[in-house]
Protein backbone atom coordinates (compact mmCIF):
# COMPACT_ATOMS: atom_id res chain seq x y z
CA UNK A 1 0.00 0.00 0.00
CA UNK A 2 1.91 3.01 -1.25
CA UNK A 3 1.12 5.92 1.04
CA UNK A 4 -0.80 8.86 -0.26
CA UNK A 5 0.16 11.94 1.73
CA UNK A 6 0.61 15.65 1.24
CA UNK A 7 3.98 15.81 -0.43
CA UNK A 8 4.10 19.50 -1.25
CA UNK A 9 7.03 21.78 -0.60
CA UNK A 10 6.00 24.36 1.99
CA UNK A 11 6.55 28.03 1.26
CA UNK A 12 5.90 30.76 3.81
CA UNK A 13 4.72 33.94 2.15
CA UNK A 14 5.69 35.96 5.18
CA UNK A 15 6.91 35.76 8.75
CA UNK A 16 3.26 35.68 9.84
CA UNK A 17 2.83 32.22 8.36
CA UNK A 18 5.91 30.84 10.10
CA UNK A 19 5.08 28.92 13.27
CA UNK A 20 6.15 30.37 16.61
CA UNK A 21 8.70 27.65 17.23
CA UNK A 22 10.64 25.62 14.68
CA UNK A 23 8.34 22.62 14.25
CA UNK A 24 7.46 20.34 11.39
CA UNK A 25 4.15 20.85 9.64
CA UNK A 26 4.82 18.74 6.55
CA UNK A 27 6.31 15.44 5.49
CA UNK A 28 9.67 14.71 3.89
CA UNK A 29 7.72 12.75 1.32
CA UNK A 30 7.89 15.97 -0.68
CA UNK A 31 11.57 15.17 -1.18
CA UNK A 32 11.83 12.79 -4.12
CA UNK A 33 15.12 11.05 -3.33
CA UNK A 34 14.88 8.97 -6.48
CA UNK A 35 17.05 11.59 -8.15
CA UNK A 36 19.97 10.50 -5.95
CA UNK A 37 20.01 7.13 -7.63
CA UNK A 38 22.87 5.98 -9.87
CA UNK A 39 21.82 2.37 -10.20
CA UNK A 40 18.27 1.05 -10.11
CA UNK A 41 16.95 -2.18 -8.64
CA UNK A 42 14.81 -4.22 -11.01
CA UNK A 43 12.83 -7.13 -9.62
CA UNK A 44 12.33 -10.23 -11.70
CA UNK A 45 9.10 -11.43 -10.14
CA UNK A 46 9.30 -14.79 -11.88
CA UNK A 47 12.04 -15.81 -9.49
CA UNK A 48 10.56 -13.98 -6.53
CA UNK A 49 9.52 -16.21 -3.64
CA UNK A 50 7.68 -13.41 -1.81
CA UNK A 51 9.92 -13.69 1.22
CA UNK A 52 9.61 -10.01 2.01
CA UNK A 53 13.31 -9.64 2.68
CA UNK A 54 13.78 -6.78 0.22
CA UNK A 55 10.87 -4.97 1.84
CA UNK A 56 12.33 -5.62 5.26
CA UNK A 57 15.79 -4.27 4.56
CA UNK A 58 15.04 -1.16 2.54
CA UNK A 59 16.34 1.85 4.49
CA UNK A 60 14.24 4.14 2.35
CA UNK A 61 10.94 2.33 2.70
CA UNK A 62 10.97 2.21 -1.08
CA UNK A 63 9.78 -1.30 -1.60
CA UNK A 64 6.09 -1.64 -0.98
CA UNK A 65 3.79 -4.58 -1.35
CA UNK A 66 1.15 -4.60 -4.00
CA UNK A 67 -1.19 -7.57 -3.94
CA UNK A 68 1.42 -9.68 -2.24
CA UNK A 69 4.30 -8.77 -4.57
CA UNK A 70 7.25 -6.44 -3.94
CA UNK A 71 7.29 -3.23 -5.95
CA UNK A 72 10.09 -0.65 -6.03
CA UNK A 73 9.05 2.94 -5.49
CA UNK A 74 11.42 4.69 -7.90
CA UNK A 75 10.28 8.10 -6.73
CA UNK A 76 12.29 7.51 -3.55
CA UNK A 77 14.61 4.55 -4.08
CA UNK A 78 18.18 5.82 -3.70
CA UNK A 79 19.72 2.78 -5.31
CA UNK A 80 21.72 1.54 -2.34
CA UNK A 81 21.56 -2.02 -3.56
CA UNK A 82 20.67 -3.59 -0.25
CA UNK A 83 17.56 -5.30 -1.57
CA UNK A 84 19.47 -6.90 -4.41
CA UNK A 85 22.29 -7.94 -2.10
CA UNK A 86 19.91 -9.54 0.37
CA UNK A 87 17.42 -11.12 -2.00
CA UNK A 88 17.78 -14.87 -1.41
CA UNK A 89 16.91 -15.74 -5.01
CA UNK A 90 19.03 -12.96 -6.44
CA UNK A 91 16.04 -11.90 -8.49
CA UNK A 92 16.76 -8.22 -8.03
CA UNK A 93 19.27 -6.74 -10.48
CA UNK A 94 20.97 -3.38 -10.02
CA UNK A 95 21.16 -1.73 -13.45
CA UNK A 96 22.85 1.58 -14.40
CA UNK A 97 20.53 4.54 -14.81
CA UNK A 98 20.93 5.51 -18.46
CA UNK A 99 22.77 8.82 -18.85
Amino acid at each position, binding site marked *: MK*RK*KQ*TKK*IIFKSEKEV*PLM*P*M*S*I*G*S*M*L*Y*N*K*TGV*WRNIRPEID*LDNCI*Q*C*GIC*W*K*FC*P*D*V*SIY*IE*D*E*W*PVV*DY*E*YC*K*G*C*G*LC*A*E*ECPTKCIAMVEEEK
Partner: protein
Amino acid sequence: MKKEKKMKLSIPEQELMNSGHLACQGCGATLAMRYALKALGQKTALCIPACCWSVIDGPFPYSSLEVPIFHCAFETAASSASGLKAGLEMVGDTETTVVAWAGDGGTFDIGIQALSGAAERNDDIIYICYDNEAYMNTGIQRSSATPYGAWTTTTPVKHFKDRPKKDIVGIMAAHSIPYIATASIGYPEDLVKKIKKAKEINGTRFIHIYAPCPTGWKARPEDTIRLSRMVVQNTVFPLYEVEDGIKYILNIKPREKKPIDDYLRIQGRFRHLTEKELNYMQQEVDKRWEKLLSHVENN
Protein backbone atom coordinates in the same frame (compact mmCIF):
# COMPACT_ATOMS: atom_id res chain seq x y z
CA MET B 1 1.71 -13.34 -12.88
CA LYS B 2 1.39 -16.32 -10.55
CA LYS B 3 0.31 -15.60 -7.03
CA GLU B 4 0.35 -18.72 -4.93
CA LYS B 5 1.05 -17.35 -1.47
CA LYS B 6 0.97 -14.27 0.70
CA MET B 7 4.02 -12.07 1.07
CA LYS B 8 5.91 -13.05 4.21
CA LEU B 9 6.37 -10.23 6.73
CA SER B 10 8.46 -11.15 9.75
CA ILE B 11 8.17 -7.73 11.38
CA PRO B 12 5.14 -5.45 11.85
CA GLU B 13 3.86 -3.95 8.63
CA GLN B 14 3.04 -0.52 10.03
CA GLU B 15 5.46 2.13 8.77
CA LEU B 16 5.97 5.17 11.02
CA MET B 17 9.04 6.27 9.07
CA ASN B 18 8.52 7.71 5.59
CA SER B 19 10.58 7.78 2.43
CA GLY B 20 12.16 11.06 1.42
CA HIS B 21 14.44 11.30 4.45
CA LEU B 22 18.03 12.52 4.12
CA ALA B 23 20.01 9.43 5.05
CA CYS B 24 22.82 8.24 2.82
CA GLN B 25 22.32 5.17 0.69
CA GLY B 26 22.28 2.01 2.78
CA CYS B 27 22.20 3.83 6.12
CA GLY B 28 22.00 1.47 9.08
CA ALA B 29 20.80 4.11 11.51
CA THR B 30 17.76 4.59 9.34
CA LEU B 31 16.84 0.92 9.41
CA ALA B 32 17.28 0.97 13.18
CA MET B 33 14.67 3.72 13.43
CA ARG B 34 12.32 2.00 11.02
CA TYR B 35 12.39 -1.19 13.07
CA ALA B 36 12.23 0.56 16.44
CA LEU B 37 9.09 2.47 15.49
CA LYS B 38 7.45 -0.73 14.26
CA ALA B 39 7.96 -2.07 17.78
CA LEU B 40 7.07 1.12 19.67
CA GLY B 41 3.95 2.13 17.76
CA GLN B 42 2.57 5.60 17.31
CA LYS B 43 2.06 6.51 20.96
CA THR B 44 5.74 7.30 21.24
CA ALA B 45 7.69 10.51 21.77
CA LEU B 46 11.32 10.73 20.73
CA CYS B 47 14.07 12.93 22.14
CA ILE B 48 16.76 13.06 19.47
CA PRO B 49 19.96 14.91 20.32
CA ALA B 50 22.35 16.15 17.67
CA CYS B 51 23.32 13.16 15.52
CA CYS B 52 22.84 11.95 11.99
CA TRP B 53 19.21 11.48 12.80
CA SER B 54 18.76 15.21 13.36
CA VAL B 55 19.59 15.51 9.67
CA ILE B 56 17.99 12.30 8.41
CA ASP B 57 14.60 13.35 9.78
CA GLY B 58 14.65 16.34 7.47
CA PRO B 59 14.81 20.12 7.93
CA PHE B 60 12.18 22.47 9.35
CA PRO B 61 9.30 22.54 8.49
CA TYR B 62 9.36 18.84 7.63
CA SER B 63 9.79 15.49 9.32
CA SER B 64 9.96 11.95 8.03
CA LEU B 65 8.46 10.34 11.13
CA GLU B 66 4.84 9.94 12.17
CA VAL B 67 5.67 10.30 15.86
CA PRO B 68 6.49 13.52 17.73
CA ILE B 69 10.16 14.41 18.04
CA PHE B 70 12.05 16.77 20.27
CA HIS B 71 15.33 17.58 18.55
CA CYS B 72 17.18 18.30 21.77
CA ALA B 73 20.67 19.47 22.69
CA PHE B 74 23.48 17.00 22.00
CA GLU B 75 24.25 16.18 25.62
CA THR B 76 20.65 16.03 26.83
CA ALA B 77 18.97 12.97 25.32
CA ALA B 78 18.33 11.36 28.70
CA SER B 79 17.63 14.50 30.72
CA SER B 80 15.28 15.86 28.05
CA ALA B 81 13.46 12.54 28.03
CA SER B 82 13.17 12.49 31.83
CA GLY B 83 11.69 15.98 31.73
CA LEU B 84 9.40 15.19 28.83
CA LYS B 85 8.09 12.09 30.62
CA ALA B 86 7.47 14.00 33.84
CA GLY B 87 5.75 16.76 31.88
CA LEU B 88 3.50 14.39 29.95
CA GLU B 89 2.44 12.67 33.15
CA MET B 90 1.63 15.96 34.84
CA VAL B 91 -0.58 16.98 31.91
CA GLY B 92 -2.36 13.63 32.11
CA ASP B 93 -0.66 11.56 29.42
CA THR B 94 0.60 8.44 31.16
CA GLU B 95 0.52 6.15 28.12
CA THR B 96 3.06 7.63 25.75
CA THR B 97 6.39 5.84 25.70
CA VAL B 98 9.18 8.38 25.94
CA VAL B 99 12.28 7.34 24.07
CA ALA B 100 15.68 8.97 24.00
CA TRP B 101 17.16 8.16 20.58
CA ALA B 102 20.85 8.98 20.38
CA GLY B 103 23.98 8.04 18.51
CA ASP B 104 27.06 6.58 20.12
CA GLY B 105 28.68 9.98 20.62
CA GLY B 106 25.57 11.33 22.29
CA THR B 107 25.50 8.26 24.51
CA PHE B 108 29.06 7.11 25.25
CA ASP B 109 30.59 10.58 25.40
CA ILE B 110 28.80 13.88 25.83
CA GLY B 111 25.50 12.38 26.95
CA ILE B 112 26.73 9.79 29.41
CA GLN B 113 26.27 11.95 32.49
CA ALA B 114 22.64 12.72 31.78
CA LEU B 115 22.13 9.02 31.00
CA SER B 116 23.84 7.93 34.20
CA GLY B 117 21.70 10.38 36.17
CA ALA B 118 18.45 9.17 34.63
CA ALA B 119 19.44 5.55 35.22
CA GLU B 120 20.33 6.26 38.84
CA ARG B 121 16.89 7.82 39.35
CA ASN B 122 15.44 4.93 37.31
CA ASP B 123 13.38 7.45 35.34
CA ASP B 124 10.69 5.82 33.23
CA ILE B 125 12.24 6.14 29.77
CA ILE B 126 13.65 3.89 27.06
CA TYR B 127 17.10 4.99 25.98
CA ILE B 128 18.08 3.69 22.56
CA CYS B 129 21.60 4.17 21.29
CA TYR B 130 22.15 3.44 17.60
CA ASP B 131 25.84 2.84 17.32
CA ASN B 132 27.71 3.67 14.12
CA GLU B 133 30.97 3.87 16.03
CA ALA B 134 31.94 7.49 15.38
CA TYR B 135 30.63 11.03 15.10
CA MET B 136 29.14 10.74 11.65
CA ASN B 137 26.97 13.80 11.49
CA THR B 138 30.04 15.98 11.82
CA GLY B 139 32.08 13.94 9.38
CA ILE B 140 33.53 10.84 11.01
CA GLN B 141 35.44 11.79 14.14
CA ARG B 142 36.37 9.27 16.81
CA SER B 143 33.98 8.58 19.66
CA SER B 144 34.58 6.33 22.63
CA ALA B 145 32.49 3.76 20.74
CA THR B 146 34.98 3.73 17.88
CA PRO B 147 36.64 0.32 17.94
CA TYR B 148 40.35 -0.19 18.43
CA GLY B 149 42.27 0.14 15.18
CA ALA B 150 39.71 2.17 13.28
CA TRP B 151 40.53 5.16 11.15
CA THR B 152 38.53 8.34 11.67
CA THR B 153 39.31 11.94 10.72
CA THR B 154 40.59 12.55 14.26
CA THR B 155 42.37 9.19 14.47
CA PRO B 156 44.38 9.29 11.23
CA VAL B 157 45.93 6.03 10.02
CA LYS B 158 49.29 7.23 11.33
CA HIS B 159 47.70 7.34 14.76
CA PHE B 160 44.60 5.15 14.59
CA LYS B 161 42.31 4.71 17.59
CA ASP B 162 44.43 2.99 20.22
CA ARG B 163 41.81 2.60 22.94
CA PRO B 164 39.18 -0.14 23.09
CA LYS B 165 35.51 0.59 22.54
CA LYS B 166 33.89 1.75 25.76
CA ASP B 167 31.80 -1.01 27.36
CA ILE B 168 28.55 0.90 27.60
CA VAL B 169 26.49 -2.17 28.47
CA GLY B 170 28.83 -2.95 31.36
CA ILE B 171 28.48 0.63 32.55
CA MET B 172 24.70 0.56 32.34
CA ALA B 173 24.57 -2.86 34.00
CA ALA B 174 26.47 -1.35 36.93
CA HIS B 175 23.53 1.06 37.25
CA SER B 176 21.35 -2.05 37.81
CA ILE B 177 18.48 -0.74 35.68
CA PRO B 178 15.64 -3.17 34.98
CA TYR B 179 16.42 -3.92 31.33
CA ILE B 180 19.35 -3.70 28.94
CA ALA B 181 19.60 -5.30 25.50
CA THR B 182 21.91 -5.25 22.53
CA ALA B 183 20.52 -5.58 19.01
CA SER B 184 21.68 -5.51 15.41
CA ILE B 185 19.82 -4.30 12.34
CA GLY B 186 20.92 -7.58 10.78
CA TYR B 187 18.39 -9.29 13.05
CA PRO B 188 15.25 -7.14 12.77
CA GLU B 189 12.95 -9.71 14.38
CA ASP B 190 15.18 -9.92 17.47
CA LEU B 191 15.45 -6.13 17.58
CA VAL B 192 11.68 -5.65 17.39
CA LYS B 193 11.11 -8.32 20.03
CA LYS B 194 13.47 -6.62 22.48
CA ILE B 195 12.03 -3.15 22.07
CA LYS B 196 8.52 -4.54 22.54
CA LYS B 197 9.73 -6.26 25.70
CA ALA B 198 11.35 -3.04 26.93
CA LYS B 199 8.11 -1.17 26.29
CA GLU B 200 6.32 -3.36 28.83
CA ILE B 201 8.85 -2.68 31.61
CA ASN B 202 8.90 0.38 33.90
CA GLY B 203 12.00 2.36 34.78
CA THR B 204 15.08 3.07 32.72
CA ARG B 205 15.62 0.69 29.83
CA PHE B 206 18.67 0.76 27.61
CA ILE B 207 18.93 -0.67 24.08
CA HIS B 208 22.24 -0.67 22.22
CA ILE B 209 21.77 -1.11 18.46
CA TYR B 210 24.57 -1.89 16.03
CA ALA B 211 23.96 0.25 12.94
CA PRO B 212 26.61 0.34 10.19
CA CYS B 213 27.45 3.57 8.41
CA PRO B 214 28.69 2.92 4.87
CA THR B 215 29.83 6.52 4.53
CA GLY B 216 31.86 6.62 7.71
CA TRP B 217 33.16 3.09 7.53
CA LYS B 218 34.17 3.33 3.88
CA ALA B 219 32.00 0.31 3.18
CA ARG B 220 29.65 -0.49 0.31
CA PRO B 221 26.04 0.56 1.01
CA GLU B 222 24.82 -2.89 0.05
CA ASP B 223 27.01 -4.49 2.74
CA THR B 224 25.15 -2.84 5.61
CA ILE B 225 23.08 -5.89 6.49
CA ARG B 226 25.87 -8.33 5.78
CA LEU B 227 28.08 -6.48 8.28
CA SER B 228 25.26 -6.50 10.78
CA ARG B 229 25.11 -10.27 10.65
CA MET B 230 28.86 -10.90 10.55
CA VAL B 231 29.38 -8.77 13.65
CA VAL B 232 27.10 -11.08 15.61
CA GLN B 233 28.48 -14.28 14.15
CA ASN B 234 32.07 -13.31 14.97
CA THR B 235 30.96 -12.13 18.44
CA VAL B 236 32.36 -8.64 17.95
CA PHE B 237 28.85 -7.48 18.86
CA PRO B 238 27.00 -10.31 20.62
CA LEU B 239 23.24 -10.15 21.07
CA TYR B 240 22.24 -10.41 24.71
CA GLU B 241 20.07 -8.98 27.46
CA VAL B 242 20.79 -7.95 31.04
CA GLU B 243 17.99 -7.82 33.62
CA ASP B 244 18.36 -5.73 36.79
CA GLY B 245 22.04 -5.41 36.01
CA ILE B 246 22.76 -9.00 36.99
CA LYS B 247 20.83 -11.55 34.93
CA TYR B 248 22.61 -12.03 31.58
CA ILE B 249 20.76 -13.76 28.73
CA LEU B 250 22.56 -14.64 25.50
CA ASN B 251 20.20 -14.47 22.52
CA ILE B 252 22.35 -15.76 19.68
CA LYS B 253 25.22 -18.16 20.19
CA PRO B 254 26.90 -18.60 16.79
CA ARG B 255 27.17 -22.21 15.74
CA GLU B 256 30.83 -21.63 14.87
CA LYS B 257 32.52 -18.47 16.08
CA LYS B 258 33.84 -16.76 12.92
CA PRO B 259 37.21 -14.93 12.81
CA ILE B 260 37.02 -11.14 12.50
CA ASP B 261 39.17 -10.81 9.36
CA ASP B 262 36.44 -10.88 6.69
CA TYR B 263 34.45 -8.45 8.75
CA LEU B 264 37.32 -5.97 8.90
CA ARG B 265 38.39 -6.47 5.30
CA ILE B 266 35.20 -5.06 3.82
CA GLN B 267 35.49 -1.82 5.82
CA GLY B 268 37.86 0.85 4.51
CA ARG B 269 38.34 2.24 8.00
CA PHE B 270 40.39 -0.85 8.93
CA ARG B 271 42.37 -1.16 5.68
CA HIS B 272 45.63 0.12 7.22
CA LEU B 273 45.82 -2.56 9.92
CA THR B 274 48.62 -5.14 9.95
CA GLU B 275 48.54 -8.81 10.95
CA LYS B 276 49.86 -7.89 14.38
CA GLU B 277 46.95 -5.60 15.10
CA LEU B 278 44.42 -7.99 13.64
CA ASN B 279 45.66 -10.71 15.96
CA TYR B 280 45.52 -8.41 18.94
CA MET B 281 41.98 -7.42 18.04
CA GLN B 282 40.96 -11.06 17.65
CA GLN B 283 42.33 -11.83 21.11
CA GLU B 284 40.41 -8.93 22.63
CA VAL B 285 37.21 -10.10 20.97
CA ASP B 286 37.76 -13.60 22.33
CA LYS B 287 38.45 -12.28 25.82
CA ARG B 288 35.29 -10.21 25.88
CA TRP B 289 33.30 -13.15 24.56
CA GLU B 290 34.64 -15.39 27.32
CA LYS B 291 33.77 -12.76 29.91
CA LEU B 292 30.25 -12.51 28.54
CA LEU B 293 29.81 -16.27 28.61
CA SER B 294 30.95 -16.37 32.23
CA HIS B 295 28.38 -13.67 33.08
CA VAL B 296 25.72 -15.74 31.38
CA GLU B 297 26.70 -18.83 33.29
CA ASN B 298 26.80 -17.01 36.62
CA ASN B 299 23.06 -16.38 36.43
